[in-house]
């Protein structure tokens, strides 16, 4: 019997989660580069030299994940003497804490004209008060 707990993703969700996935890899690699730059003085020029690439190419890679492939991630991390740990996959049924979800509710409490309402746990919508 087919497992009915799975549903086909919507077209919107497919596009949304592709970008989200790409952005997560990007933020992780860029954060690691910044850490190595801070702690060991690594520069983009040095990274370019290690990979035999043009410095402009490295700058483009570190400026956004638009043209990244899985190979890009591997190459950048390898040049920094690193690799991804076993990626952790989570179910949407699991609770997760968002990095910046603890926003200052007091600010909105003080505002007489705006209300904030949760929207699907992703972003919050502001409406003018009635």
């Amino acid at each position: 019997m087919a497992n009915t707990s799975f549903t086909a993703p919507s077209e919107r969700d497919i596009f949304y989660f592709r970008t989200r996935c790409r952005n997560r890899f990007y933020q992780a690699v860029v954060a690691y580069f910044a850490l190595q730059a801070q702690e060991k003085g690594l520069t983009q020029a040095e990274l370019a030299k290690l990979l035999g690439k043009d410095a402009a190419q490295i700058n483009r890679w570190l400026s956004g994940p638009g043209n990244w492939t899985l190979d890009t991630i591997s190459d950048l991390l390898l040049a920094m003497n690193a690799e991804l740990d076993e990626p952790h996959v989570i179910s949407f049924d699991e609770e997760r804490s968002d990095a910046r979800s603890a926003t200052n509710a007091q600010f909105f409490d003080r505002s007489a004209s705006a209300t904030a309402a949760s929207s699907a746990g992703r972003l919050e919508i502001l409406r003018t008060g009635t």
Partner: protein
Amino acid sequence: MYLFEDLFEAMQDPSLRGAQLQRFAELEATLAEFVTSRNLDPQYVFLLTPTKDGIWEIRSARPEPQIRVFGFFADRDAFVATNYEFRSTLGEYNSKEWQFAMARAKSIWRRLFEPLLPRYESDPKLLITGAIDGKYFLYRS
């Protein structure tokens, strides 16, 4: 991350199809990154001039067409996105269209929160937990 209703409704418009649906879904993912990502890269958000207005833009640069989202920090880690424009409609920086978009951002803020003011800081690290220092990403050809 808080979105003014016009922006939220534009992203969630059920009549969107094809490339438009894809582009706005990607924009939503970019905005949601502010909420979920432990770190934020230095290309994510920029303070616009005049800096005294405290208007920031989030750049959703890829894929084309590029979109700019305007907004303010109500507090640390609390970004209020007020309005958006396609980059192509804004023209050169400081154009009439840019000024109109920034004036609209200020108008929405006032409508929502007056007399409260946004946070005025020029350093993203003071406004965003986990903001990555941009000094490591400077590039001169």
